[in-house]
């Protein structure tokens, strides 16, 4: 007598095994995220408050802040990023071992914020891939903690066995860009109540 499900039993076991491996790997990764703080502005003050005893993100396994990119898992860009620092943050990102994640903390890191001018990168996602955007100017520590927990949730949804959900490095192309130039222009366009201005003026 053939039992129901026997045909798929090997696949079923494999899937269960894969789930188990993913669970173990992802839990380990999510619960020991070592941050690499890249603090350039007032967001870094809130970041320090998040790290200090009142909010204490060590509760979520971020015990050790790695001021060395080679020992870090998540790059937290806290503050505005001028074009002069763009190659620096890209090099830091390239030096981090995989798997690596990026949190863009605050309005300036995410979109350029109020600094819609000649010197400022309009969102660090034109430089490095970003996993979690934390809005605010600057975000309160609760906001950053919420972003970190969202990143935990995202990490726990990843899979080693699924090409779509697996994390891959995003290298720069031959022009030295991460995104196509049209994409960068599109996402760097002014929005909201930004001053209307023509480039040719």
């Amino acid at each position, binding site marked *: 007598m053939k039992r129901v499900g026997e045909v798929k039993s090997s696949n079923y076991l494999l899937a269960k095994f894969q789930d188990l491996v993913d669970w173990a790997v992802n839990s380990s990764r999510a619960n020991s995220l070592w941050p690499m703080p890249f603090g350039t502005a007032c967001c870094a003050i809130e970041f320090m408050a998040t790290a200090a005893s009142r909010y204490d993100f060590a509760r979520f396994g971020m015990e050790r802040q790695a001021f060395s990119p080679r020992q870090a898992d998540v790059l937290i860009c806290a503050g505005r990023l001028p074009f002069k620092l763009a190659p620096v943050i890209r090099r830091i990102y390239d030096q981090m071992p995989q798997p690596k994640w990026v949190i863009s903390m605050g309005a300036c890191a995410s979109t350029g914020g109020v600094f819609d001018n000649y010197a400022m990168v309009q969102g660090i996602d034109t430089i490095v891939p970003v996993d979690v955007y934390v809005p605010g100017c600057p975000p309160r520590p609760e906001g950053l903690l919420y972003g970190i927990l969202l990143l935990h949730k995202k990490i726990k949804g990843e899979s080693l066995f699924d090409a779509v959900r697996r994390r891959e490095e995003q290298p*720069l192309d031959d022009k030295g860009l991460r995104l196509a130039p049209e994409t*960068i222009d599109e996402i760097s366009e002014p929005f909201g109540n930004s001053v209307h*201005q023509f*480039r040719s003026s």
Partner: protein
Amino acid sequence: MARDGERIVYVARERLLDAMTWLKDTPGQEFNYLVDVTAVEFRDRERPIEVVYFLRSLERRADIRIKVELQPTEELAVDSVWSLWHGADWLEREVYDMFGITFRRHPDLRRILMWETYGEGYPLRKSFPLRGRFSRAEQVRQALNANPEAHYSMEELSIAEAAGDIPEDMRDRLRRGERGVIPEPPAP
């Protein structure tokens, strides 16, 4: 007199260094502290660009402002006051970076805030668009292809303390601002 009660003196461009030397060295003046150097370009394009020097006498507790008017039609250049106040070094570099005003006989006149290969012009000029001349994609491309170490001269990096020991020709080369070549260590 300015509205805040400070004294403003307009000086002709050719006489700037003489006037500054007089202000610094004459007893009774003794303006021995250069507070700031900056420049002003007015919205009215007809008005000249002003280079403003803020001087202070620490002993007399007196302030004075010196202004030099530069017509936009002629060459934007004044004499450097570095020989009087060495603190003018970076201040004049910043004015050069932001306004494109050349300071003659400055020891090391190059950009200080923007990177040295910055090609969009002088950002604080009225003719400069707020978001820069290039598209955002081009700005990102140039920024990512920049070499972060190239922003600093070798003097500012590792060999600053050894500047007296390096050969004369190398020192000249560094002074001229040629960068990007790390000198070979001498043979033992």
